């Protein structure tokens, strides 16, 4: 393979994840997001877990890199719960 631009999906496919199905470690209040006009999460989440669909913010925790940026930038009450995934779940970095 040679160097090329990689999409978020391609980048996350390189990482090892063990998704805790049905147990999201981050909970997002869509009603609060609906009122938020700034939506920094769409821009700063390195895994692009936050995406705009129609007018709503969709959140998908499966590819979360556990950095904490969304919690820190969300001052609008959208990220209501942020904790680390349960033990043995989430991302496992092997060479970072």
């Amino acid at each position, binding site marked *: *393979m040679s*160097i090329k631009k990689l999409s*978020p999906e391609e980048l*996350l496919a390189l990482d090892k994840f063990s998704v805790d199905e049905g147990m999201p470690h981050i909970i997002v209040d869509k009603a609060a997001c609906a009122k938020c006009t700034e939506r920094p999460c769409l821009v*700063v989440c390195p*895994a692009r877990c936050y995406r705009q669909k129609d007018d709503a913010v969709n959140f998908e925790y499966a590819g979360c890199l556990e950095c904490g940026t969304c919690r*820190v930038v969300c001052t609008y009450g959208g990220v209501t719960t942020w904790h*680390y995934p349960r*033990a043995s779940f989430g991302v496992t970095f092997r060479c*970072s």
Partner: protein
Amino acid sequence: MSDDKFDVIVVGAGPAGCACAYTLAKAGKSVLLLERGNSAGAKNVSGGRLYTYALEMVEPGMYKRAPLQRKIVREQIMMLGDNSAMTVDYADYGFGEDVPQSYSVIRASLDEWFAGEVEAQGGTVGSGILVDGLVEQNGKIVGIKAGDEEMLADIVVAADGVNSLLGQKAGLFPDVKPHAVGVGVKETIELPDDVISQRFALKKDEGAARVALGCTEGISGGAFLYTNQGSISLGIVFNPEQAAKNGRQIQDIFQDFKMHPAIMALIDGGTTVEYGAHLVPEMGYHGVHKRLYREGMIVVGDAAQFGINTGVIIRGMDLAIVSGLAAAKAILATSNPAEAGPEYMKQLEELFLLPNMRVYANFHNIFGMPRLFKQYPKLANEALEFLFKIDGKVPEPMMKGMLKIVKNNVSFGQMAADAWKAYRSI
């Protein structure tokens, strides 16, 4: 496990937690080091470069056992233009002599090794255990909770990283603010070791460290590149507040940077094998949490927000190790948990951690100059283009041409203001 009480429970097996646990275990304390990743380092991402002195403080010669990558002898500063780049390359082979000054590192291997060292000293390491609460008794922290289990100790050391949910749970500090952190993204790119050596003019065990400006669309932040054994770590750190205002996904900006011809020349033919992201404390001394202890608990490393960024040197892991050592020394020097916290603050002075940070206390103000990340790198590139470009036409006189380039990018008033700000900051 819940029946046993430990002298100390350390939460987080990064450099801070491992340095602390190692020192305590070596001194004969019963230590439990807990790590939420399946192995130490599994949740960690850093640039990364480790300044060796910190490991030497823990134990002279220890660095020789560590899985370090390349000793850094080339320090490089890069300013990017759209289709050009200016690089300052400072090679100092003295940095590689005796105890080499710094090494590039991969956290998965470094942290796992360090946790192994703790075990070798008789410490207990529990990986794959998420600490999600604290046990309090009469206003003192006396242990931790992991799911349904409680584990008790005289002192809990929170080495749980930049987000430090434990420090927040203990009521020591509020959550970090967006202006006080940077969000870093990074690709690890595999390349044959000899190719890396050739491209960066290195011998086999030597390494290069590079910072780059002018690649963040004007957002406060910059890129980094470290040469490892058989791979290159390439990434950018952004101020998340400004990135949000800028409006373009940070990952897209990073991908553009990667494809810049001057960067591509370094990584071409490589294979991206991992993508990581992490928060970094960016406020330096003024960003350090005001309260780093209460009875029964001490906060170390990124959790305390220790970090130094001067633009050309970026320090976190060394400070983490020194702070872990400071906590261990404080615990060893005091018999009463109530005295350990104040002693820790003293140790942070005596081991020169806080004095080091104070020297650079106002440096983060420099990064408040928006022109540093766009106009000045562009100006530097345009000035060099003007110097080197020959196309057979009659060029403008030197002074006139240069002044035009300066004026196109920045006014003299702005330059004077920035120079004053820089002077005041350093």
